[in-house]
């Protein structure tokens, strides 16, 4: 009954409203969406209230999880299957079954370079960002002006990746040594009497220059989480260690590090996943040119610019496969904690 009523509603709505191009149309669509959400939610609650007892609880659980599972299936599983299918059907994503896209990925020099760059990113960014964050967190712990020092390094987190990309593009801006400099870094080089450098064009230097931007953004996140974890170490343990005469480095090695292990894992894996997906920085700063492309950016270029959606899909699948172990490890760690 209910489904037929819902099905009948859109048919009764005039066309322009559904396209939400007018202001009343937008409001109508919004109210309709809220109404629909309330209806589904109410229905779930009502049905759940019908079941009682031990077995009933299971049905209730299933009912509550149900909508989320359905939405995940539509929004995540279905596109994933479509993508995998497309990646197996040649460059255009429409041909017969073939593994050509995957073999291209590991044989074409241009694409191998993309894989190399992605590896550099995924290894360097989490290690650098986490170490910088950790060292900073320890240095400023209980120091005077801690809040201010924290704010300083945390601020870049508030800037979008695109914004950060544009800011750093200016920092790296190149002008001939003999001309007035706009870029901060080259201005410093010139001041010190060196030749100015084309940071974004000279490979492989440019990839590292881009990695710095990501580290700049992520170090704040690492610092915040790790600082909280350090503060959570019970004072008794620290005092006991001090009474035993433990020196600063040993304190770090035997007390601090083991105590914040869980937090470290979360930070490293979170940054790792974020780095695998890095797209905005590369796109705004070099557009993936000059040998700086990474998997996510190459996926976009292949799918939308080089008219090779099949190859793009294969790259997306690769990204998916690369993320799986990190996520799995993360989940296992979280379970251990719980």
């Amino acid at each position, binding site marked *: 009954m209910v489904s037929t009523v819902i099905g009948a509603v859109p048919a009764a709505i005039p066309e322009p409203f559904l396209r939400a191009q007018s202001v009343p149309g937008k409001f109508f669509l919004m109210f309709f969406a809220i109404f629909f959400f309330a209806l589904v939610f109410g229905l779930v609650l009502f049905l759940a209230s019908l079941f009682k007892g031990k077995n009933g609880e299971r049905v209730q659980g299933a009912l509550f999880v149900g909508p989320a599972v359905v939405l995940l299936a539509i929004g995540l599983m279905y596109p994933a299957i479509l993508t995998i299918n497309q990646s197996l059907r040649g460059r255009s994503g429409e041909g017969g079954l073939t593994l050509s896209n995957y073999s291209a990925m590991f044989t074409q020099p241009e694409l191998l370079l993309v894989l190399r760059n992605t590896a550099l990113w995924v290894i360097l960014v989490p290690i650098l960002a986490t170490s910088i964050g950790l060292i900073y967190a320890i240095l400023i712990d209980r120091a005077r002006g801690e809040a201010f020092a924290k704010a300083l390094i945390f601020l870049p987190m508030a800037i979008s990746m695109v914004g950060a990309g544009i800011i750093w593009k200016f920092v790296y801006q190149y002008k001939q040594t003999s001309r007035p400099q706009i870029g901060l870094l080259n201005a410093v080089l010139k001041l010190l009497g060196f030749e100015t450098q084309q940071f974004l064009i000279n490979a492989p230097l440019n990839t590292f220059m881009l990695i710095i931007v990501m580290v700049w953004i992520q170090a704040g996140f690492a610092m915040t989480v790790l600082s909280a974890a350090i503060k959570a170490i019970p004072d008794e343990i620290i005092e006991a260690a001090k009474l035993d005469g433990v020196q600063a480095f040993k304190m770090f090695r035997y007390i601090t590090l083991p105590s914040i292990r869980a937090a470290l894992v979360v930070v490293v894996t979170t940054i790792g996943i974020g780095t695998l997906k890095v797209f905005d920085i590369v796109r705004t700063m070099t557009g993936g*040119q*000059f040998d700086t492309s990474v998997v996510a950016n190459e996926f976009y270029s292949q799918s*939308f610019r080089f008219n090779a959606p099949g190859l793009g899909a294969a790259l997306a699948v690769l990204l998916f496969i690369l993320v799986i172990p990190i996520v799995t490890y993360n989940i296992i760690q979280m379970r251990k904690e719980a």
Partner: protein
Amino acid sequence: MALYTKRRIAALSGVLAVALTATACGSSSDGGGDTAESGSTSSIDCAPYTAFGDLKGKTVTVYTSITAPEDAPHIASYQPFVDCTGVEIKYEGSKEFEAQLPVRVKGGNAPDIAYLPQPGLLNTLVQTGAIKAAPPEVAANVDKNMPDWKNYGTVDGTFYAAPLGANVKSFVWYSPSAFADKGYEVPTTWADLLALSEKMAAEGGDVKPWCAGIESGDATGWPATDWVEDVMLRTAGAETYDKWVNHEIPFNDPAVATALAEVGKILKNDKFVNGGFGDVKTIASTSFQDAGQPILDGTCYMHRQASFYAANWPEGTEVGPEGEVWAFYLPSVDSSSKPVLGGGEFTAAFADRPEVKAFQTYLSSVEWADERAKTCGTGGCVTANKNADPSLLKNPVDKLSAEALTDSAATFRFDGSDLMPGAVGAGTFWKGMTDWIIGKDDKATLDFIEQSWPK
């Protein structure tokens, strides 16, 4: 007041021309034209659009790669149509047009009309089935006004997209006064051009003969493809050029290698480039808009760029044979041939609502072409419409372009990368040339592009 009268006469003669063509062809539904109004916006004969029904309050969305400052005169040229029909035109220009349009089409969010700068992209989009065939009114206009260009807008025998703007790419921008000061003469053969560059480099000290830049956002690399095409037309000839564009010879054919090597003599020569910006590599990071500007401050002498570059000179720059900047024809190998490389946009429609059809019809009409010339801002207002009134073109570069396009001695060829499949013409050719500039050698570049050609 002289200008006022001149404009009035021009407008009147334009209307006369329209009326004459219309009666000559006998296809117009209405014989008489409106009395011309002088002023910035003129009115047009509304009759052709009333046939599409009542269009008041309707909207047509237009998506293009033409961004500021070149977009404003474009938008101004729609005014008579808007006044006539009451249709609202929503204009949106994007530098990432080539990549975004297919995304929008696939996502079910296609604009009503897109100005495709590449027939190759048209071909790709037609395969998706999203583009509507041009209405008969548009086809009739194109047959009448721009028959030579019709095949570029035709895919598999169906006519989809009418030509819109046109431009000439075989120009070299230079400063006549700087040339005069140094006693340089405009070269007439390719050998002369190289010799002149050599001379400039030897005498110039810090001043380089050439300025170049190929950065263009998502489309980075295209100005370099124009170089190759222009030189290819000169060293290999138009027939080999056509074969190359249609992939009847491979992309890494010796003829192409010769052309690329010839381009390399200029673009990859640290002595010749890159005026004011640095070494050869800076070509890759200098936007094509900025690239020619150093001609004005005397740090370089020449900049090979299309006629539409006229719009990029700062306001108040005097453009003309005696002015601060002017353009000469990129010399052919010798005087026996005069190849002209050009490009243009095409209007493709993704909807066939009456107001969209009416707007398409307007854009393919002589009225629009004349209005475009009248509202023209800083240049780049030549259209493919051969019945448009050339006397309306105010900008000297536009006049020069119109002459080049209609020169009977010239062999016109459409921009090759625009005709190639999108994967090459708007993809690997651009990327390949960018990599070539920053150091990849000729052979590796051509091989890379060849292997990407869709099989």
